[in-house]
């Protein structure tokens, strides 16, 4: 693990912000569970352990510098997502299957 990863730039005197992803058990995916401040990657992993896995929530942790997450623009939500509203034929349930294949 590199200690030199560049995380989100500090606001005033605060440590950089990190996003925390926790895998609850082997085979499942890592889920975003929150964020925290830490001086570097190693500290972020340790503090993620202390903040987010206190009740046996985890078997594996990822941390990502928050400023490395590229997010879609909330202002463009309409343009991005509304056009899918009327395209029900994209769901497999839209189609009538032959009786022999039904209940797949």
């Amino acid at each position, binding site marked *: 693990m590199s200690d030199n990863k560049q995380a989100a730039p500090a606001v005033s005197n605060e*440590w950089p912000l990190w996003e925390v992803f926790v895998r609850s058990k082997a085979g499942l995916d890592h889920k975003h569970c929150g964020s*925290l401040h*830490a001086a570097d990657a190693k*500290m972020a992993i*340790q*503090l993620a352990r*202390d*903040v987010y896995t*206190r009740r046996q929530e985890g078997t594996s942790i990822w941390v990502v510098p928050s400023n490395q997450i590229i997010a879609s623009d909330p202002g463009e939500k309409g343009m991005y997502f509304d056009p899918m509203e009327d395209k029900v034929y994209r769901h497999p349930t839209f189609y009538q299957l032959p009786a022999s294949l039904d209940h797949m």
Partner: protein
Amino acid sequence: MPQQSIRVGDSAQVRYLLRLADSCLILSQRLGEWCGHGPILEEDLALTNMALDLVGQARGLLTRAGQLDGKGHDEDQLAFLREERHYYNPVLMELPRGDFAFTQVRNFAVATWLELLWQRLQSSIDAEVAAIAAKAVKEARYQQQHAADWVVRLGDGTAQSKARMEAALSTLWPFFNELFADDAVDAAAVQSGLGPAWSELQSEWQQAMDAVLDEAGLAQPKPSAYVSAGRQGVHSEHMGHMLAEMQYLQRAYPGGVW
């Protein structure tokens, strides 16, 4: 009527377990004082997590010590109803929490020592103690790493953090001696297979200290000949105040639970 104090017998094996149990209990209480006062929320949680690990270890050992003592005292009675002279933790554990540098230097030294001790206690002839050690060794390993990182970070940090680390080291250094001072209690534990003599841990502990302090750019203070005597029940002036706070509820409301 206030709750009467209890006493434990003079058995070497009970004494051996209480020295370790009280070390965990008393340091846990000191770490708990950081609750709500940590430098950042995340580290506040880290410190109180450690306090809870330590209190868990103390509970197991106190319960076992109570069984071996044979007077029917449970973990709570042993934790809260003894008098100051009947606590057997090294004085190191009861020193006031100090600043963050002091806390991390002590945590580092103690976690390093505990990890070595738990490793050996995993093969204790006492199955209960071995089981407690098997669980605790993982907790100590994490605490050791977490504190070691802070020692390096602060020692190799700013002029102010370095100065605070140096001050903490020089205050704490003489109190480390007691972690490795042997007596008849240790000899009996070795004899019976209950656990190692604490002096056995010294060279490995010193190596770990050397490595981390070196990486932190911190010089070790000169060795001191002073050996505190908490393990014999002779404590510093801080212990009584601490116990007054710890014991208040059980003394005022005997047997109180929540």
